[in-house]
């Protein structure tokens, strides 16, 4: 019985659980098992939205994810989601939703005025105007009118996760073919891992709305039995609410699984969605097919719907699209829709079939007292906000009829869902009988079954699916050809009102216009008209557009071709791709061993190349400058402590270790004595300064290479590459041990006493342990390696202990140093001190153009006869240029404060900010020398010492003088304390 728009049907409805929801401000009711779309339909809602450009009223058109009209905004606030299709939203209690892009409502939208000027704004009209006087004038209004839903106003509160699976067979789709294939695949081998995924909440696919028995059982009973058997098989994993959206190289399929979207917001816990990455040995694509609509004038009116959609609404959801129905078709499958609706209480006013002889189905219609109009097609739907009649025209001749109705169902045949097959690299083959593209040759181990392979007969689909699952070939029965489709002549006025892409408002007229203007390839057609570029990505429009183009150009469809399919098959949440790589888990920062202790001292932590380190440690009330001045003074006059654990440490060991490093460094390595350290510079093969650091010789065949913090891993990998790929005959082992050793740097004249204070068996006497040497022993009771190297210019020990002891070592040194006023210092203080010394900082004072000779390494290179990485590059013409930028110091000459890093150097007589001779690379206020200091890369800098220059930075001029950058203690007297 018909009551309102609900019927007694609805195989997935749970009438014991009524739900209430709000649509466009109105309270409505539905049942568990409804989608928002079926509930709207059951409530008699006819206009569910407005089209993108013309804001024409639109009704539900499909029942699945190919829906183009019912685009909604779901919920409000931080959990809001724009642009969902009502057909994909599982109804829950308290759901709030409304149409997008319609104001004040879908029923009455002021932008509908666009439809009045439709003829002046056809496809691509914006290319032909709006550029005088300037696009800028018009763009804001265009932008405001564009877009569908509204982005949420706040950060996404939900969490998304990634999961992985490795399976032998993945079956995508749980219609009859998918279920049959999964069962057969699982039975091939008891331990074959089989996964079956279904995008819908319910398994069964087309079975949920089918009308004919399957293997003797009702469709639902067959489904229940099949699913039951699959659940009992231990080698089968079933996933519902999991949509396969990408088929990538080498058998990788991605799924988007919805975990909580079907629950009321208040009941959602845990991750919202899960992205699966599934590696499969074989894939069975049981992805079904999309019904093709019939284009005719007025086919976008509410009340015009795909035949199979109406059948789904009636049978699965117990909701009627209307009361007085006309069916327009060219194939048999649509008759089921008419009969199902008739059984549910609708009046079927007529079935219009383009075929002259619809055979058995026509007879069945006749038996049901349904009027048949054969050899005819829909001409025009009548009505303004709802269908109220349909004009029909004979294909041969010009006989016309008009039928009063409130619903028009259309079916032009079926388009197999070949998206994933195509994504995998598979080819497509046009089938003349079905007038659509079928999966052709696969390049990966994937096979299509059922409707996805163009096999529309259920029994044949099941047989074929089982055979495919067992790896056999099954010959499919010849497809029953679909009947003709009425064509539009070029420049037929009706074409301008026959919609092809409903969401983007593209008509057959627009296709004709595109062809007229020479946009005649399927790619040009798509881009020019935007056909197929809406959120349904052309699932109901692409093929229709191709047919229209084919008709117009008189070219067969295979020559027109089709556009490429790319992931995602259906839109997927951006957050789901990000997964857990958000917030602190996005490229997580590493902590130093002394992190906790330094935080307790009030450290200002900042990121430095993947590590969180203290920039400086201000006392309460101190500014950055004050803290840094205090820290620098403490080191220069007393003692300071710095956590140097982040600097790279790479062990290089083997009989050829010295020979290898000789080739890696600009400096000599072979002649370094055991127990000694040396400063080294490394280039890349392009001659660019890549890294610097101190290396130590632990034994004849054993070196410890020091690198900058950020380059530890890249350099150790680079070493491996040279050894494995270029010089495999060198006997060398390489290991990155950076995080194996914590390193604390004690610096200042009291450093020796502080180190002695924690207890060590290493002889710290100056002649026993000179500068730039390396010792091993125990420190604080723990195995240690100690180097005397100094980036501050003061007496300095770098004490390395196994990482786990780092925090204790820090504490021990701080305690030991207390009588000497030991002061923790941070990276910025260290930088001030090294600028005072004029020491290079790779990455600051160098960039991707800096050669070693620019830094004064020319003489060192001249002394070394051997080849090393990058050597050949620096002797090219570019390296011999006499006006290269060279690293020099800058003394401020205008009495002002520190120069800005990034300020550019101009000649002393420069009046205008034009051109550049270089730039400031490092800058600091020196507490030691009480004046600002800087370093810069300046053209011919070393030949211009004492020369005045001007600096310019964002409108500010400064005066400076080029100087030798060894500002403080150039003779290195501080080094021994």
């Amino acid at each position: 019985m018909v009551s309102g728009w609900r019927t007694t049907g609805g195989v997935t409805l749970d009438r014991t659980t009524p739900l209430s929801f709000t649509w466009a401000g109105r309270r409505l009711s539905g049942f568990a098992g409804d989608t928002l779309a079926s509930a709207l339909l059951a409530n008699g809602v006819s206009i569910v939205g407005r089209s993108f450009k013309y804001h024409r009223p639109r009704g539900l058109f499909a029942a699945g994810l190919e829906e183009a009209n019912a685009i909604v905004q779901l919920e409000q606030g931080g959990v809001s989601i724009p642009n969902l299709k009502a057909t994909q939203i599982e109804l829950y209690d308290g759901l709030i939703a409304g149409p997008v892009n319609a104001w004040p409502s879908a029923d009455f939208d002021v932008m509908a005025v666009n439809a009045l000027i439709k003829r002046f704004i056809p496809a691509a009209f914006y290319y032909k105007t709006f550029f005088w006087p300037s696009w800028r004038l018009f763009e804001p209004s265009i932008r405001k009118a564009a877009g569908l839903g509204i982005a949420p106003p706040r950060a996404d509160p939900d969490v998304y996760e990634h999961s992985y699976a490795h399976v032998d067979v993945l079956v995508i789709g749980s219609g009859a073919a998918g279920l049959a294939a999964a069962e057969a695949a699982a039975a091939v081998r008891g331990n074959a891992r089989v996964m079956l995924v279904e995008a819908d909440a319910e398994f069964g696919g087309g079975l949920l709305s089918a009308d004919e028995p399957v293997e003797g059982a009702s469709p639902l009973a067959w489904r229940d039995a099949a699913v039951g058997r699959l659940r009992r098989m231990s080698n089968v994993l079933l996933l519902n609410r999991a949509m396969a959206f990408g088929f990538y190289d080498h058998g990788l399929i991605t799924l988007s699984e919805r975990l909580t979207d079907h629950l009321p917001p208040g009941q959602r816990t845990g991750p919202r969605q899960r992205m699966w990455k599934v590696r499969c040995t074989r894939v069975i694509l049981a992805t079904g097919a999309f019904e093709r609509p019939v284009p005719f004038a007025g086919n976008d009116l509410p009340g015009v719907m795909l035949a199979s959609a109406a059948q789904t609404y009636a049978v699965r959801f117990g909701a009627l699209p209307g009361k007085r129905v006309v069916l327009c078709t060219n194939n048999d499958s649509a008759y089921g829709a008419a009969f199902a609706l008739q059984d549910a209480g609708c009046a079927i006013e007529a079935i219009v079939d383009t075929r002259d002889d619809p055979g058995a189905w026509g007879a069945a219609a006749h038996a049901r007292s349904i009027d048949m109009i054969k050899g005819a097609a829909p001409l025009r739907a009548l009505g303004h906000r709802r269908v109220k009649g349909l004009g029909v025209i004979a294909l041969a001749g010009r006989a016309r009829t008009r039928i009063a109705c409130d619903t028009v169902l259309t079916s032009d045949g079926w388009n197999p869902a070949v998206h994933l097959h195509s994504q995998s690299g598979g080819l497509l083959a046009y089938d003349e009988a079905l007038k659509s593209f079928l999966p052709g040759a696969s390049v990966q181990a994937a096979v299509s079954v059922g409707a996805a392979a163009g096999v529309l007969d259920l029994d044949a689909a099941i047989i074929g699916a089982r055979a495919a699952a067992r790896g056999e070939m099954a010959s499919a029965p010849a497809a029953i050809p679909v009947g003709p489709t009425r064509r539009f002549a070029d420049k037929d006025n009706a074409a301008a009102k026959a919609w092809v892409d409903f969401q983007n408002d593209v008509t057959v007229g627009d296709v004709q216009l595109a062809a007229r203007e020479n946009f005649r390839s399927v790619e040009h057609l798509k881009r020019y008209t935007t056909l197929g570029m809406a959120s349904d990505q052309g699932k109901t429009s692409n093929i229709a557009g191709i047919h229209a183009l084919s008709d117009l150009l008189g070219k067969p469809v295979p020559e027109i071709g089709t556009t490429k399919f790319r992931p995602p098959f259906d839109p997927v949440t951006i957050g789901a791709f990000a997964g857990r790589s958000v917030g602190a888990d996005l490229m997580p920062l590493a902590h130093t061993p002394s992190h906790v202790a330094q935080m307790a001292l009030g450290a200002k932590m900042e990121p430095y190349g993947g590590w969180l380190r203290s920039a400086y440690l201000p006392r309460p009330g101190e500014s950055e400058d004050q803290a840094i001045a205090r820290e620098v003074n403490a080191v220069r006059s007393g003692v300071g402590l710095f956590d140097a654990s982040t600097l790279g440490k790479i062990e290089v060991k083997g009989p050829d270790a010295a020979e290898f490093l000789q080739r890696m460094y600009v400096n000599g390595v072979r002649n370094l004595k055991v127990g000694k350290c040396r400063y080294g510079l490394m280039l890349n093969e392009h001659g660019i300064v890549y890294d610097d650091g101190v290396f130590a010789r632990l034994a004849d065949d054993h070196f410890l290479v020091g690198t900058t913090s950020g380059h530890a891993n890249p350099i150790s990998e680079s070493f491996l590459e040279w050894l494995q790929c270029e010089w495999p005959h060198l006997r060398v082992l390489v290991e990155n041990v950076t995080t194996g050793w914590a390193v604390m740097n004690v610096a200042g004249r009291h450093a020796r006493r502080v180190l002695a204070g924690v207890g060590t068996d290493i002889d710290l006497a100056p002649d026993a342990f000179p500068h730039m040497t390396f010792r091993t022993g125990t420190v604080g009771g723990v195995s240690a390696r100690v180097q005397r190297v100094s980036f501050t210019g003061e007496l300095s020990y770098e004490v390395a202990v196994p990482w786990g002891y780092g925090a204790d070592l820090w504490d021990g040194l701080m305690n030991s140093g207390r009588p000497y006023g030991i002061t923790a210092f941070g990276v910025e203080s260290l930088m001030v001190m090294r600028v005072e010394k004029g020491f290079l900082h790779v990455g600051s004072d160098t960039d991707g153009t800096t050669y070693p000779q620019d830094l004064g390494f020319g003489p060192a290179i001249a002394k070394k006869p051997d080849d090393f990485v990058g050597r050949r590059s620096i002797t090219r013409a570019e390296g011999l240029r006499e006006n290269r930028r060279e690293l020099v110091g800058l003394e401020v000459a205008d009495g002002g404060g520190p120069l800005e890093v990034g300020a550019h150097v101009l000649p002393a007589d420069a009046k205008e900010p034009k051109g550049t001779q270089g730039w400031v690379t490092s800058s600091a206020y020196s507490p030691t020398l009480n004046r600002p200091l800087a370093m810069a890369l300046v053209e011919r800098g070393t030949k211009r010492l004492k020369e005045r220059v001007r600096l310019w930075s964002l409108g500010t001029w400064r005066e400076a003088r080029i100087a030798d950058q060894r500002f403080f203690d150039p003779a290195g007297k501080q080094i021994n304390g």
Partner: protein
Amino acid sequence: MLLIECPYCGPRPEIEFRCGGESHIERPGPQGEVTDEAWSDYLFYRGNPKGEHRERWFHAAGCRQWFNLKRDTVTHRIVEIYPMGETGSAEPTW
């Protein structure tokens, strides 16, 4: 996402690896005799074929070994995998 069969670890996804570009590039020498052209060739010029490509891969997140493979740059099909230091089954096609 490529599934690469590391000769030492078995099949692993491409994110565990780093591609080092074309295989079998010889570093010219001795240094003093290398012309600018030969050096430029070595640094910058590669076959870049649309088709089968011999390239080096490094299993960064696994065994940290380099190896070679032959891969089609259009279909991404991996045709052959062979150890570093060997030349594989046939001469390069370009």
